């Protein structure tokens, strides 16, 4: 079959039986849709491939990763306090940022009007770790233990300088709203591997009042809304409207749904409207969701050793640690794209104190997730990503003192790491200049990053497209090169 058929708005030719199963819940509903399956050219072929539910019937490349867990560090974590070691900054601490380094590149209005832009060396100590001798700061003690699994990209760069456009760019490939998010693209392209759970799940650490998040970040943009991410929340109702109303038992609900189905079946017999079948399946799947979501979110049967691995927060629902553990459970069940958000990395001032807290909240659980996936044999085909929407300036925003400074937004370079699913383990890629301002080697643009991500999932980023307003859109817009060096 011609793989470029995935490019149209109508994935009919790529439609598979699996797709039907997933979308319409045939498996458990037990309802025949035979009258829909008219003898049809294309369909027979489609049915021959039962493994995918998205518009991509056959991967464009052998897929190294089957699913993604994206630990999004919202706000823009400082690379200079974590992975990008710059001793020269400490040596030249307090000097004005040389114009030869800045090269007229724009700054935000938050620090752009400062009379002086004092270089600020990191207050935290760095050491080399692992076989690759990766420099990691003392803020990430747990991460240092898994560096041999990490593929660290120190040369990420973006175009946006403010949070909203930057995070929107990172999550949708465009600064302008209205485009589908990464997870929505994958949902559309690859479908689901679990008919009882959404293919795209979003987990947010609540209570972090900082740079806000917006539903567009996991939205479907111009793709049909079925592809949008479903947020799992902590608390008794992980998915909105999931729980039966007070006083309604599962048994009572089941009885009601059986009667509802009878009514729908009468209607179908009468009107021959195939959409009634859709309606019936919709309710069956909703019922199954009501069971499968509490099952996956209930961590009470996890052994104590697992809680110890993820850290003390893992028992507190909603924390980053608890979300990491939940992400692993979702990955085990075949959820395609699991997007975590942890806010609070926007340290314009009081950076030393702020970033300490942030690292404490995320370090252990991020490392634990890698360890846990690995011990279950899941790391092989699960791609884990850690990173934010941009980096931070090498100069202090506001006053630089001996024990305090802030850093402004910096799109010119930042660090992201990946692990598992087809990336080179224990590998460092890209380099910034000695003051940590510009990328000097192997730059990776946001589009390149997206192209690489898709490639790991077996997708040619130029071929996963959707026609909207007369144009074939893709996650990587009109550019993007796969960073081949990162591929294992």
């Amino acid at each position, binding site marked *: 079959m011609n793989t470029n058929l995935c490019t149209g708005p109508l994935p009919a030719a790529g*439609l598979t039986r699996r797709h039907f199963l997933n979308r319409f819940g045939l498996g458990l509903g037990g309802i025949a*849709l035979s009258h829909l399956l008219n003898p049809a050219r294309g369909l027979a072929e489609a049915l021959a491939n039962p493994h995918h539910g998205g518009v991509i019937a056959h991967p464009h490349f052998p897929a190294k990763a089957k699913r993604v867990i994206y630990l999004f560090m919202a706000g823009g974590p400082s690379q200079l306090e974590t992975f990008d070691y710059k001793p020269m900054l400490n040596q030249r601490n307090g000097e004005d940022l040389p114009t030869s380094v800045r090269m007229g590149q724009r700054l935000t*209005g938050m620090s752009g009007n400062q009379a002086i832009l004092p270089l600020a060396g990191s207050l935290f100590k760095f050491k080399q770790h692992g076989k690759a001798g990766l420099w990691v700061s003392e803020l990430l003690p747990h991460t240092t233990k898994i560096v041999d699994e990490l593929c660290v990209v120190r040369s990420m760069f973006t175009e946006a300088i403010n949070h909203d456009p930057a995070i929107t760019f990172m999550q949708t490939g465009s600064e302008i709203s209205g485009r589908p998010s990464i997870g929505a693209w994958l949902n559309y392209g690859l479908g689901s591997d679990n008919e009882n759970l959404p293919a795209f799940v979003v987990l947010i650490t609540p209570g972090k009042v900082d740079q806000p998040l917006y539903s567009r970040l996991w939205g479907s943009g111009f793709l049909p809304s079925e592809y949008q991410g479903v947020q799992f929340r902590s608390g008794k109702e992980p998915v909105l*409207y999931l729980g039966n109303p007070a*006083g309604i038992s599962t048994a009572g609900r089941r009885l009601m749904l059986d009667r509802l189905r009878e009514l729908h079946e009468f209607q179908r017999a009468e009107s021959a409207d195939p959409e009634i079948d859709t309606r019936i399946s919709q309710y069956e799947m909703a019922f199954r969701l009501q069971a499968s979501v509490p099952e996956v979110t209930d961590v009470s049967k996890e052994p104590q050793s697992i809680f110890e691995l993820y850290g003390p927060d893992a028992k507190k629902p909603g924390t980053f640690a608890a979300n990491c553990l939940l992400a692993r459970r979702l990955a085990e069940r075949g959820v395609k794209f699991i997007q975590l958000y942890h806010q609070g990395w926007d340290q314009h001032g009081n950076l030393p104190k702020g970033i300490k807290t942030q690292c404490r909240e995320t370090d252990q659980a991020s490392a634990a997730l890698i360890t846990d996936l690995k011990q279950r044999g899941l790391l092989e085909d699960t791609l884990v990503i850690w990173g934010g929407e941009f980096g931070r300036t090498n100069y202090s925003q506001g006053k630089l003192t001996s024990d305090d400074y802030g850093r402004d937004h910096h799109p010119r370079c930042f660090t992201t790491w990946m692990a598992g699913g087809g990336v080179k383990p224990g590998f460092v890629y890209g380099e910034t200049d000695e003051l940590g301002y510009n990328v000097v080697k192997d730059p990776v643009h946001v589009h390149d990053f997206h192209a690489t991500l898709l490639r790991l999932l077996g997708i040619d980023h130029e071929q996963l497209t959707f026609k909207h307003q007369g144009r074939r859109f893709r996650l990587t817009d009109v550019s993007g090169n796969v960073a081949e060096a990162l591929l294992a």
Partner: protein
Amino acid sequence: MDFRPFSRPSSKLRFSRLALAVVFFVVGLVSFALNAVEPAEKVNFSFQIRPLLADRCFKCHGPDDKARKGKLRLDLAESAYAIRDAEKREAAVVPSHPERSQLCWRISTTNEDDRMPPAASNLSLSSEEKELLQRWVKQGAEYTPHWAYIPIQKPSPPKLADDSPAQNPIDAFVLAKLQRENLKPSPEATRETLIRRLSFDLRGLPPTLEEIDAFLADKSRDAYERLIEKELASPAYGEQQASLWLDLARFADTYGYQSDVDRDFSPWRDWVIRAFNQNLPYDQFVLWQLAGDLLPAPTRDQILATAFNRLHRQTNEGGSVEEEFRAEYVADRVATAGTSFLGLTLGCAKCHDHKYDPITQKDFYRMSAFFNNIDECGLYSHFTRATPTPTLLLYAEDQEARHEKLKAEIAAKEAALALLARQTESPANARSSIPRPEPSARYSFEEISKESTPDNFGSNAAQLVDGPSLVSGKAGRAMLFSGDNYVVCKGAGAFNRTMPFSFGLWVKPAEYQPRAVIFHRSRSWTDSGSRGYELLLEDGRPSFSLIHFWPGNAIKVQAKTVLPTNEWSHLAITYDGSSHANGLQLYLNGEQLEVEAVRDRLYKDILHRAQWGDAEVGSIELTLAGRFRDSGFKNGAIDEFEIFDHCLTPWEAKLVAARTGGAGKEAVPPSDKELREWVLRHENTNYMAACAELRKLREEENTFANDIPEIMVMNELPTRRPTFVLKRGAYDARGEPVEPGVPETILPFGKDLPKNRLGLAKWMTARQNPLTARVEVNRVWRSHFGHGLVESDEDFGTQGRLPTNPELLDWLAATFMDSGWDIKALHKLIVSSAIYKQSSSAGPELLAKDPENRLLARGPRHRLRAEEIRDNALVVSGLLATRIGGPSAKPYQPEGLWEESGTGKHYERDKVEGLYRRSLYTFWRRTAPPPSMLIFDAPTREVCTARRDTTATPLQSLVLLNDPQFVEAARVLAERVLKGNADDLDARIRTAFRLMTGREPKDRELEVLRGLYEEQLNLFSAEPAAAEDYLKIGERTYDKALPLPALAATTVLASTLMNMDEFVVER
């Protein structure tokens, strides 16, 4: 295998129609493909060839100059026909000669290097498509313009046989087409179906049982027509039509972007409701929204309508580049006008020439020049709640008259004072002892102790922040600043816009900065819209401003003189409390400076006010040399800073400079004029009394105006702001300057039209404009049939879908314009047709032949919109609050959603009426829209959306089953049916069933529902506590007099009906 229809059935996949889509794909595009296989059939360029060329070839051989390969354009005949190989007499296309047409061999060659489209494009042509192109060349390769750009002619309806069921010309067009396809129309739908269909389509609400009964009983011939009239006259009609308009207008209750602060546009939404209910003609509806402010003597509604152009998202994210976002806003206005009025994807030409349609990048920026001309800022204020300018004051009732009266009184008083001044003669003698002007505060900067420096009166010591230091000054010592530090004069200079005041100070700049803050009393620069007053040096030129919100609500004067660097200059600023630019004077070393009034429109106060919701009220301080996120006075020095709580006369300004500049220079004798003005202000009791009265009036006006809410609207700048092509769409990559203009291939811009938004609006609504009417009739058609005649509402261009019945579309468009763009008449025309009244059920054969009902051999059938589904539940339960308009409501929503997104905002849901208002009033936060609406396919309203998808997902089932809004509605409905029929289960079921579906239940349905009821009754009887829990859901308390288990079981029954397909689908 490569089989591809010529045109894709839909640019968006609808989930619930996936299965159908397969069938559709296979059958191939029924109408177009069938035409193509008839060998004798003439190929239609517009319908068969252009879509093909556009889709596969135009990306490299289309209108975009920069993307063009091989210097070949296939969208224009002359370029396609141009000889490319003189020897072989070959061109890309040689009419009637496929053998000499390079296109023909390029598409069929097996040589990969030569074949088009190239493999790398991921595009290909099917054998049918290749054959079609060959045939087109053979038949003469005729080019005709894209159908949507051809002026609208009114076609005559086809003649039909006398016994045809046609009731109006719409039917003739559709039936003729059905005849060609060998299809018969479906019989008329039942009356129950008809009234339900009509009621949802026109009012967005289901009919009441009384309405159904009355219609069923009405046997008169014009019963249906009267029903239409009644629906159209219902106020709910305007609400429903407005609700449809809100997605296009990207209407929301918040700004969008990350902080997503609330701002109330409900007055505009209410105008839309009014406009529809008053049946404002569509051309006026368009014109008012685009340019109502430019109409002669515009009414307040006409100005209010232009808020349409300000509904785009706006940001206040700290550190954002103002111009970057302003450029975004302008681009959004263009794209939105393009999509909503013209059905064009103008936004595609923002960064490069349009790849498919004849819209150049220059056209985009010519269009943007129309929208680039208001006095706005790219950022709204973080620290204040000021309405971004330009704004319209939203007067209640008689407030406008009262305000006008106040303003007139002030003007009269000002004129009287001017007259008095002219009439006053010079005093006979020079005075020997004129009192020196005394400041209310003076800072000489002679000493620093404990990070502060005293004022000379010992009351308000000024605080030093981040270490400004003392240096040798103009007199004694002065304060030297770094650009990052500053001095806070706590408690000083707390002036509002009606208070006269003056300042004097010595300044010594070290360099020319583009912008340097000398002093200000404000919270910040763009982060607070510069609210307050400020003295700046801009490239050495002093300027002084009083600002409510920069730039549109402010006065600012700027001197033409540049101050010297490394030298002391004395500056004095005087202000008379008039809120006029000419009430501000600047003096350099005692001499009045010639100034330019940069802004002269200040109509609200310059202080932070608690009642406006501004931040940090009471802690804004007069500050020297620096400001939060602004450019400070780098290496500059300030000395002898004085504050006066009155307006100095010119001679006093001279005195202040002389006195503070050193001893012995005070005895400057005044000129006659200077002396006269001094006497007038200090000794003429008449004048002084009149001044006091004036000040009182101004204060009264200030208080009055401050309480009037505002809304963002359009208001043209007096001088046009230059507009440039922005390369790659980037705000800082200016290309050539452009004049306002339109894509001329659509329709040339009339020479007599003004080159502003009014001209643009007239161009859009001109009879000759090929798009505006087509787009609107298509939209109205969609509101009835669920699909447009052109499926791609958002794109009538060459990449859009082709009309399924172009003659009908044009007839409707022409008729619409002929009617004076009468929207209600258009609705009536459509719903009166026999086609509309058909039953929507289809046999398997018809379903297979035309799964999406493009041929209209049956009536409309589509799932209700998110709003309609919720409103339906509110109506059938009797909960609906019918009040029209007003601020948005906050109905049920799961707790904590806003908090989770990190905005720190809390959703405080309404307690009473707000829970039950129609869904178009539901509060819309762009970054976290109402979840139940999103689940039912509503867009986020961040950008203009022309069309919603219709999906079917399990999450939707969960909303209908479990959302308290629906659970409560089911229970209230259960109470309603239980009360009348406590002993008659069947009657209860019947009533509930009719309310939900509009029809009587069939026997077997009744039987199932009885069974359901009994099952649930057993459950609840066994567990009465569960029944009680269930019934307690929702704010509305339940009737405790009713038997609990019965009520609970009836509620489940009602809930079941609410989950039936028939509840959410219009048939």
